[in-house]
Every structure is written in C-alpha cells, then in structure tokens.
C-alpha cells in the first residue's frame, strides 16, 4: 500500500533536501519527541535562526516529517512501500535511505503512542490483596468470617484509579476458575486459527 501524499504535504517536505542530512536526522528526532511530549514552538525558532530560514518553514518541515512517520506507522507499510511512496518526492538516494531508517527505528514507539489514542476503557494496572478475618460487628459478636480485600489499580486516559473491593474465599475461587477458563480460550483451535489467519 502506498502513502497518498497531498500537494501541501509534498511542499512542506520539499524543505528537507535543502538541508544537511544531520539536520534531517535532527528534525526526525524532534518529530518523535513532539509525538511523545507535545510540540514546543521555541524549538522551531532556534532551528530557524541557525538555518537562516523562517520558523514557519522549519515548522512545516518537522510537521511534514511527523505526518509521514505517523501515517506510515499507522498503516504499518512495508519497507518497499515506504521507499516507493517517498520516491515520488524526488529526493536523493541518501535522503531516502535516511527517511526509511527513521521510519523503521521509530515505528514501534509511534504505534505505541497511537494506540493510546483509541477509545479508552479503564485498563488493568496492578492488584494488591489481603486476607482478613472478621471477628465481631456491632450486631453480632464472636464471628469468624474470612474475607479477601483487594485493591485494584486501573488506568484510564492517563489517570490512575483505585478501587477497594472485598470478596469471600469461595467467590474468589470461583473468580479464579472463570478467569482461568478465559485464558484457556486463547489456546483453543478456534482462536489459534483466527490469530494465524488474520494478519
């Protein structure tokens, strides 16, 4: 699958051949950093001054590069497809190689970042547990009531959430049995076939 680059995008990227390959590598690093942390306009100004161009040009260059990397990573295009897509820009052999390397080096991380953008359900983080025995309450003395207290740590949209819950040993056994069945499902022929064939 080839990337479809718009005219505007191609214009932005046209800046890249005009600078040194070390600069392009630096732009690549900045692009990934911005994907990780968010963009920082001051960086553009500094680079613009050093290269004697307007900061807009630098910004477009970096953004063009960012878009190229994220689209390629999102679609998980092959090396060949990436090379063919970039070929239409008419860059030098050296620059094309650099861009490919940039793509391959950062693809995994970019995909991780992109996966955080999907509709988010609370996701499991960790779990702590404790075994207690209730001995008495206001309404009944001399009890022996074992219970398991669980602190469930969940993440959602970057927020950390904890829930404190309780259950009795019999229910806990039932829960564990159910979840072990869930795990067993992955080993069935049906699931194995799906995983093997949908790639």
């Amino acid at each position, binding site marked *: 699958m080839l990337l479809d680059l718009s005219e505007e995008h191609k214009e932005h990227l046209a800046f890249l051949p005009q600078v040194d390959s070390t600069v392009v590598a630096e732009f690549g690093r900045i692009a990934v950093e911005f994907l990780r942390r968010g963009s920082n306009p001051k960086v553009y100004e500094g680079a613009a001054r050093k290269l004697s161009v307007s900061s807009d040009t630098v910004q477009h260059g970096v953004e063009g590069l960012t878009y190229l990397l994220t689209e390629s990573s999102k679609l998980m295009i092959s090396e060949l497809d990436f090379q063919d897509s970039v070929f239409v820009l008419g860059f030098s052999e050296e620059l094309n190689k650099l861009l490919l390397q940039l793509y391959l080096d950062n693809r995994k991380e970019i995909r991780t970042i992109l996966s955080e953008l*999907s509709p988010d359900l609370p996701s499991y983080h960790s779990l702590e547990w404790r075994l207690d025995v209730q001995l008495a309450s206001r309404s009944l003395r001399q009890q022996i009531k074992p219970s398991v207290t669980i602190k469930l740590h969940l993440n959602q949209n970057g927020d950390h959430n904890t829930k404190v819950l309780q259950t009795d*040993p019999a229910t806990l056994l039932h829960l564990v049995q159910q979840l072990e069945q869930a795990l067993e499902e992955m080993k069935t022929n049906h699931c194995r076939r799906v995983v093997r064939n949908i790639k």
Partner: protein
Amino acid sequence: MELSEYVQKGFQMLADPGSFDSNAFTLLLRAAFQSLLDAQADEAVLDHPDLKHIDPVVLKHCHTAAATYILEAGKQRADKSTLSTYLEDCKFDRERIELFCTEYQNNKNTLEILLGSIGRSLPHITDVSWRLEYQIKTNQLHKMYRPAYLVTLNVENTDSRSHPEISFSCNMEQLQFAPIGQSKIKNMSLKISSLLSEVELNFQTGFSNIFK
C-alpha cells in the same frame, strides 16, 4: 446480658399464666421470632384469634420485650444456661423456659445469619464476566492483530443495595495476575476451614479470657 426494665416488665407479664395461658405464650413467642426473621411478616403477626382476649397494649409490650431479648441473645451468642438464668429471674416456670430455649435453638442459625449481614462493608464482588476479543484496527492504528480481554466484576454494595459494575481491559499476561493460583486458593480454603473448626472449640473460653 444487660436488658432494660421495659424488657424485664414485659417478660414478667409473659411469665404469668394468668395473663398468658400456655397456648397464648407459645403463639406470642412464635410471633416474636416471625417478626424478626420472616421478611414478609407485618403487624398482622399478632392477629391470632387465641390472642384476641389479651389487652393489645400488653400484647405489644410483651411482643417487643421478647423480640428485644431475642436480638440481644443472638448478638451475644447466648448459650442455654445464660438464657435460662435470665428467664428464671423473670419468674418463668420450667415448662416455659424449655419452650423458649427450644424455639430459640430452632431459629438460632437464621437469627445469626440475619445479624451477621447487618453492617457496612466494602463493595463485595459477587461474580465476574469476561470477553475475549481480537483487535484488528482502530481509526488511529491499523494492523493491530492482538488479543485482549474485557473483564467485568459484578459488585454489590451492602447499604445502598446498588449493583455497580467494574469493567477493565487487560492483556493475556496481566490476566495471569492472580498471584494466587487455583491450587493456592484451594489450600487457603482448606486451612481456613480447619482453623475455623479449631477456633470454634476454643471460642467460648478463649475469647472471654482474652477480653477479661
């Protein structure tokens, strides 16, 4: 067991064969247990033809006294001798004491379960459901191809009687989170049961010695 004058007076009336004959006594006693333990019971529990001849004020007083006593006895896990002692002090004859103790013994388990269920506790997990999915793509990311689980815990709140659910997603590695596997839990259950039976034997003396 510390009981109020009100209860004592009610029992003294209940002890008197002049106010309550054998039949009326038994009926009132059963009514008291029923009011406490039967979820469907209402005021009509005292509407028996054989109780009609008794002054309703007295009837109510004795009914309340009996119910109060039963609850207190249940709470303190009173044994037969404790029950008998108090009833003797209220001038109950042998026959009525026996009757009371038998009724109490019959209803003891239900009473203790009821009392044990009163009170606040953390939200209680009652069940779990799970869903296994194979993620293919999102609008942000294509070619994902990985399995994921969605786990929902059914939770019960004692006071609000609400049933919230807690759902979360996790992957295979995380699902193996139970740092306690099935066999360990079974061992834990066995250990607890043997501990329970051991402690039950020592309870009456052991605990009271600790708290003297």
